């Protein structure tokens, strides 16, 4: 599938409707069946696909409608991870989880989600997987001698899943590592772990690094300077970073260090409900093009749209697409 120059995409999650949140809570309270919940999820994914297509997004996801949050969806499926099911009140809270022995090496079984996505769209599709560094930060480690050791085994298990995704037809896989920004000193080992995860995976590997988006709020502040130069060792194809909320100051790092990666540039602030205009988006894209050639840039929101109301999320995606079209036209495309 040929993508236009400056392809647009999403970071992963789409707006989580209030009704879906309520129905999930009903499921946890044993008031609706698993079968009904699966059907609800299927319909929510179809609606998310339709919204992204209608907005004109080039590379879409399933909106992560099946996930309570980015952690638990994987932790629940990772063999050897113990989950305390009494530990959360609302479905989007995190479970308490622990590892008490060596993790068995088995895929986590989310490739079916990708197959479902592909069966309802002709667009290029991307699948997002929470990275081993982020998962490590949510697990109470009672077995491994270090976080790095735990993360390495998590990466090995997830690597099997990434290969399953490729077998299912995934050509773009995004690894979400939002905790890098909170624990910059971990970067020495977490880049190694990232490479273990991506090893032998025949797909375009995208790494998304932001400053957190729990409940629509940042978890940390600072500069992406901490990533450099260590991130240059990552064997990945694209870094997607947030610039809309924080401004484009850190774009200069791409000129300073000339990383071999493509840049996924965040042009939509997902932590405010104010909808950007296409002109604002175009300005942000133009700013990125001062540092990275257009052929190496993908246009995205800063992070997932999980916490935005659906009409706002849709309007923001429309503005992103329209603003990108303005720049493409200037570039003669």
């Amino acid at each position: 599938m040929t993508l236009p120059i400056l392809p647009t995409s999403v970071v992963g999650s789409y707006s989580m409707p209030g009704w879906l949140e309520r129905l999930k809570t009903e499921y946890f309270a044993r008031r609706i069946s698993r079968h009904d919940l699966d059907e609800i999820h299927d319909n929510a994914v179809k609606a998310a696909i339709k919204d992204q297509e209608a907005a004109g997004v080039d590379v879409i996801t399933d909106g992560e409608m099946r996930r309570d949050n980015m952690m638990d969806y994987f932790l629940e499926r990772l063999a050897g991870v113990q989950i305390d099911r009494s530990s959360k009140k609302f479905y989007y809270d995190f479970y308490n989880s622990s590892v008490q022995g060596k993790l068995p090496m088995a895929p986590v079984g989310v490739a079916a989600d990708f197959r479902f996505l592909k069966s309802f769209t002709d667009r290029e599709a991307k699948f997002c997987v929470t990275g081993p560094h982020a998962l490590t930060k949510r697990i109470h480690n009672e077995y491994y001698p270090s976080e790095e050791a735990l993360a390495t085994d998590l990466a090995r298990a997830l690597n099997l899943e990434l290969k399953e995704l490729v077998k299912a037809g995934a050509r773009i896989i995004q690894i979400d590592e939002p905790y890098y920004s909170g624990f910059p000193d971990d970067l020495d080992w977490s880049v190694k772990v990232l490479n273990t995860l991506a090893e032998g995976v025949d797909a375009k590997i995208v790494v998304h690094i932001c400053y957190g988006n729990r409940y629509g709020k940042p978890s940390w502040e600072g500069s992406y300077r901490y990533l450099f130069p260590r991130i240059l060792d990552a064997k990945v194809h694209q870094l997607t970073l947030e610039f809309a909320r924080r401004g484009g100051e850190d774009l200069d790092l791409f000129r300073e260090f000339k990383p071999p990666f493509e840049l996924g540039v965040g042009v939509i602030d997902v932590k405010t409900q104010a909808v950007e205009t296409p002109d604002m988006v175009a300005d942000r894209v133009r700013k990125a093009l001062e540092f990275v050639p257009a052929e190496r840039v993908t246009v995205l929101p800063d992070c997932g749209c999980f916490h935005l109301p659906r009409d706002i999320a849709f309007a923001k995606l429309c503005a992103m697409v329209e603003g990108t079209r303005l720049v493409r036209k200037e570039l003669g495309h």
Partner: protein
Amino acid sequence: MILQMNHLPRKTSAASAEEVVATLQSLLEEGHLEPEQFANLYVHLDWIQYRNNFREPVTVVPIADEKAGKIPFFEAHVDLRQVAPGGFRAEMLKAMTPTNPGFGRHPAEYEGGIRLEDFGPFRGSIVWRFNHLYWQRLAEWEGSTGHGYEAALPGGRSDANHPQAVADGVADFWTLARDLEMKKQLPPELFVLEIGVGMGTRAGLWLDGFRKLDQERGTNYYARVRFLLGDYSPATLERSKAAVAGHREQCSFVVMDALNPMQTLSFLRHKVLHIHMTNVYDNLPDEEMARRDGRLFLVEARAYLPSCEAERIAREFALPERDLRRCIERLLEEGPGHFGDHARGVEFWRQVWGALRLEERMVCVDDLPAEALPGELDVNRLEEALREAPSDLRFHVNSGAMESFRNTLPLLSTRGYLQVQDIFVTRWSEYRLKFHGPGKLDGSIVNWVNGALLRETAERTGFDVHFAPFRYREGSHTSILFTTQRE
């Protein structure tokens, strides 16, 4: 009949309580009450906390419920403190008469008093306009009473200004700044916001304390502090300036609505490290609801002047009684100056305020259109929150406090915290223990805040809420709400 009895400490009420039960039984036997009414009667004893309040000794609250039969149901709230020995029967009959028979007639109408508005959620009541007048013209009220508003508070001073509480708050903030510095995340400007500043005493104490601590420890944080004093009364802000005169470089004074700090300070979104409020939520417009037999009711209120009070005020101020309502409206629109004799105008204000009463009725939520519900109340969410609450209870919704809370949290930086000192009901079950307002505190309204609902709301939006007792003053009812962003 359900009889809920509360006990006011240091008040002997056993004999009166006996009288209530015996009287209700005899009213049934004499035919003043229908058996079905009696069976569904909910009687709440000592439904009062504040000595100055909006209630008669016995208040009958009709229940408007389309699903109920033709016989009007009602509940009765009894203030044993106000009921004279042997006087309950007369008070009960007086309170019941408009309801039974002739359901829906107003006590004022029955007695020839003055009704000041139509029924509606308490948030929209005229009493909040009196509250607004008080804060906008505080100096005039204080001039008339001869004492400052703090004198009306329990203990005669605001818990906001307790030196040790402020010192502990200063130490907490310094520790946060230090931690941020260690993590190389100390912002160039440390924004602190106080909403509802009173005389500025707490802000002054806080800044004095922080500067001293900063100097002692050789950290250079004080120079980075940007202290914003926010209040909706320009007069109050003006008065607060003297207390922070030694910190002019650090302070800004912002006229703002506590209901929506983001409206004024949106440029500080995710930037404020510490927000403090004392006794602000308890003075924001609110509503009450009740759950009876598993169904939710909105408590609607209507303000009136009892006939004897209306007559007295009219006589005292040489006004025709029929002009009282118009005079009150002018008072609320123009202030006490409209009387010509300003001192007399303030006296009129005080007399009317002292005499104001609230009549109530309960309307089943199922019978109300969604837009009639307070604020952005989501009944489904409320019912979820009530799952852990006692089955029958009356509680505050505090839509004003909820609105303020919701519009304050976005200002907080990732590591920031909101601290609210106020009178909180921290667990649903506490509503069973005693009545929690509204009352009159000098010329203002005081009302407890539903902390349990606030916590539920915060948790859904990613904030943890903890309550701690205000341990700095013995016997204090104040709690400290502490909010931080949830991981």
